[in-house]
């Protein structure tokens, strides 16, 4: 078998890709953002229900490659029931890991560490980043009192 391939598509990643978390629509939507990867066409919608600055519920709908879907699924798992400020810090840590600036993740990050494998495929890093950048944009808009702003986040501009 090919080792770098299996390192990118780890079993955990394929499992998230086949059975993504956060697919269930939520009743109350306080934050809604969309993101896309223009070069490969990945698209994502992220919706949050926020109470007292804590993410009570999340709905993620990602249409794209295995990496973008798995990354979005892992995000949904990690951020539920967390305060917004902590989620912003978490997203920053993931971004640093994908860019090779951070090696060791706190234990609570769980499966997310398996996304490290994409670093060997530089063009795929933005696939893994898509959900996180979209979430950050949504939180930023929410904190500016504009959580439902209908602006699409593009990974091309963020890099």
């Amino acid at each position, binding site marked *: 078998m*090919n080792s*770098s*391939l299996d390192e*990118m*598509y780890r079993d955990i990643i*394929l*499992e998230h*890709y*086949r059975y993504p978390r956060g697919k269930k629509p939520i009743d109350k939507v306080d934050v809604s953002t969309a993101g896309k990867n223009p*070069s*490969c*066409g*990945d*698209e994502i919608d992220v919706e949050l229900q926020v109470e007292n600055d804590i993410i009570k519920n999340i709905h993620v709908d990602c*249409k*794209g*490659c*295995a*990496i973008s879907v798995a990354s979005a699924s892992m995000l949904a798992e990690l951020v539920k029931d967390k305060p917004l400020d902590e989620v912003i810090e978490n997203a920053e840590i993931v971004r640093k890991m994908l860019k090779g600036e951070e090696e060791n993740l706190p234990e609570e990050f769980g499966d997310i560490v398996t996304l490290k494998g994409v670093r060997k*495929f530089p063009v*795929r890093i933005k*696939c893994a980043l898509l959900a996180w950048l979209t979430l950050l944009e949504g939180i930023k808009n929410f904190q500016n009192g504009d959580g439902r702003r209908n602006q699409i986040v593009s990974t091309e501009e963020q890099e």
Partner: protein
Amino acid sequence: MTSDLKSEIMTDSKKLSFDSSKIQDDFPILETKINGHRLVYLDNAASSQKPEAVINALDNFYKTTNSNIHRGLHTLAEKATNAYEHCREHVAKFIGGVSCEEIIFTSGTTESTNLVANSWGNENIGEGDEILITEMEHHANLVPWVLLAQKKNALLRQIPITTDGTLDLTDINKLINEKTKLLAVTHMSNVLGTINPIKELIELAHKNGALTLIDGAQAVPHMPVDVKDLNADFYCFSSHKMLGPTGVGVLYGKKEILEKMPPYILGGEMIREVSFEKVTFNDLPHKFEAGTPNIADVVAFDTALTYLENIGMENIRNHEIEISKYAIEKLTEIEGITIQGPLDETIRGAAISFTDRDVHPHDISTFLDSRGIAIRAGHHCAQPLMKVLKTVATARASFYIYNDRADVDYLAETVKEMRRYFRG
């Protein structure tokens, strides 16, 4: 592979018009191992590989002939000039026997279309004029016209495509009208593989007083093309997709049209006389070749043309009809796989796009690469076409002279393996 299967493939390969396995020996790169596997190169619509003869020609030029051209009075300058101009003669002959004055060397198809847009387009397109393209254009034959239309307040119109990936000519008599100044259309789609009925379209355009530009980047490498018979006004293609080096393209233009066009890039070589007050331009084709051209690559392109002629363009077309037929058959057998483009191999080339109901093209490409297969995944520089096809990207396997049935079999088997891998 079992010996039975192998001998069956061998027998089947003999049915092809020529022996691809012999041709493979001429391409050193095909011996490369990719991720531990034999390289199966199926990205020929992006760029072809080069035979040893072309690589040697490039090497030889720098070892024996290198010099600037046209100006020097020494032996090497004359030798280099002759070699460069010999390729021009060869190109003129290769596309149907046109005049050398009508062959302009550019850096590629993209520069060729840009030259026409900036020179002819800038002079001849005005407010309210119409430029007609198709929904299946590559960005090289799209972006220059979008910008020209914006700049001139002209209207850019598109011939739509049908669900089977051919041009929908239902309203063609409305789309081509007295306001149409230019019809710019691809000879063969780089995404769908569709070969367009350009001779008929050119005739229709001429009847309405419009000029025609044909993007032949995917056609000239794969079939006989006679620009005189087609009666095209401009015809563009690239060396690197037809066994030649990168950085060389061709713009064919009818002499009487080129003569009236202003130069596009200004500098040395394109002038006749220069003073601080006045510049007169050189004759065709040099008027459009300012500065030192890509001499060595043009000279090696000459060798690529000879290589293709030795095989015969008609034979290459027949080989690709057969390999397309076989590949379409093998790929459509696979559950979940859809071919994007015509299924009739006689109206298409061997650039075969497909999508998978469950797996994204980038995942397909990464997986196939891990098994030594090079394909292209993405929007193929045709974003408007992706919208029409209601997809974001496709995977594309594109075949050439060195690909055989064994390559198709390996592709089909690996696609099946890929589906098992991602779907679990």
